[in-house]
């Protein structure tokens, strides 16, 4: 029986008959590569879009969120490991074909469909068919992704992905190899490609104590952002919570997240957020010119909204994003 080589992600798994890829969601069946998760999400929820997190994209709207089992990374701290690190036959799945996803999203008055929780790359076929239908019905598509994807599939994805929150998990290859079992360069390239293709991009860096929490880590990451995607790309520093294989670590100290934000702002990045810490100043969006709060938040909740026609209500400075 023929072997197959999956070309979806940089792992490029070569699989003999009956063998699965690293992602657990794709398998060689009789010499053909099959996706095992098409139309079978194991998580379906309506979330505030702020939960993705996307803070500059249709704020205050609901996002119909789906995920299937599997992932092509194996992060030691994965916050959703119960679904991302399991075979699809070991999760509780729904039967939800793309047409039904659209119907339910519209019924729930959502503006977007989010492909999230695990990793949209590994359910590419399901995500792309759903996304095309979504566009036909006036819905937009959001990927929450680690962007560990090959250039060919990515080139296709940017045709139907409207916004993405991309995890930039660290800024060294050593970190990626040690903690995620992946590599850094494909992720950096994918972020640049998405940005240059017109996808609305926000970045998230989960700050893990002792792994990626030094001043140098933050400094290097911010330098890369400024040089490659620009100061207007929002950056979220998220608080780590002990999970999966890193239960031995404490939650990220808040002062470390504040330091990360300060460093990012000192590098000139305009919109820097602190995630998973409700009530932190870093939950808010500030106008970079007049310094007023243009969106006041507590966690995912919007308390004040001072953007009119995409501009700061106080000084008319244009705030990048999609607001209406």
């Amino acid at each position, binding site marked *: 029986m*023929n072997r197959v080589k999956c070309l979806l992600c940089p792992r490029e798994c070569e699989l003999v008959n009956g063998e699965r890829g690293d992602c657990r969601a794709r398998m060689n069946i009789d010499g053909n590569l099959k996706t095992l998760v098409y139309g079978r999400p194991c998580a379906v929820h309506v979330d505030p879009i702020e939960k993705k997190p996307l803070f500059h994209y249709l704020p205050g709207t609901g996002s119909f969120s789906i995920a299937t089992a599997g992932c092509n990374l194996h992060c030691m701290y994965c916050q959703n490991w119960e679904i991302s690190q399991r075979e699809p036959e070991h999760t509780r799945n729904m039967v939800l074909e793309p047409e039904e996803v659209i119907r339910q999203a519209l019924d729930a008055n959502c503006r977007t469909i989010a492909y999230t929780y695990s990793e949209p790359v590994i359910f590419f076929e399901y995500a792309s068919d759903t996304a095309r239908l979504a566009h036909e019905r006036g819905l937009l598509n959001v990927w929450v992704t680690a962007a560990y994807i090959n250039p060919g599939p990515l080139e296709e994805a940017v045709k139907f992905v409207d916004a993405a929150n991309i995890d930039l998990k660290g800024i060294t290859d050593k970190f990626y190899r040690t903690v995620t079992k992946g590599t850094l360069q494909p992720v950096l390239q994918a972020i640049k490609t998405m940005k240059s293709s017109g996808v609305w991009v926000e970045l998230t860096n989960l700050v893990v104590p002792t792994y990626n929490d030094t001043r140098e880590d933050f400094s290097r990451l911010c330098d890369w952002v400024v040089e490659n995607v620009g100061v207007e790309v929002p950056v979220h520093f998220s608080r780590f919570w002990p999970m999966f294989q890193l239960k031995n670590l404490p939650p990220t100290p808040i002062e470390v997240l504040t330091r990360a934000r300060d460093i990012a702002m000192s590098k000139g990045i305009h919109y820097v957020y602190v995630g998973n810490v409700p009530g932190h100043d870093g939950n808010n969006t500030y106008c970079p010119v007049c310094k007023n709060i243009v969106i006041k938040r507590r966690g995912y909740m919007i308390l004040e909204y001072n953007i009119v026609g995409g501009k700061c209500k106080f000084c008319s400075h244009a705030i990048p994003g999609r607001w209406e």
Partner: protein
Amino acid sequence: MRSKDRLFIFLSIVLIILFIASLLEQMSISTSSERSIRPQAEDISGVLIKLEEANLEPQEARFYRVINE
């Protein structure tokens, strides 16, 4: 033997046991993580039955190349 000495020996044994337990736990985590990364080829008929039982319907994937043998 003084009671102080007995206490010292007892505490030492407890610490050694805890140390060995933590080493074993670490070994178990690293083994299971390596195993989880690359599930090996399986008996295809058994797998297909399992997938069917789980109500999964494998569909043709995109982005791959057949390697003729």
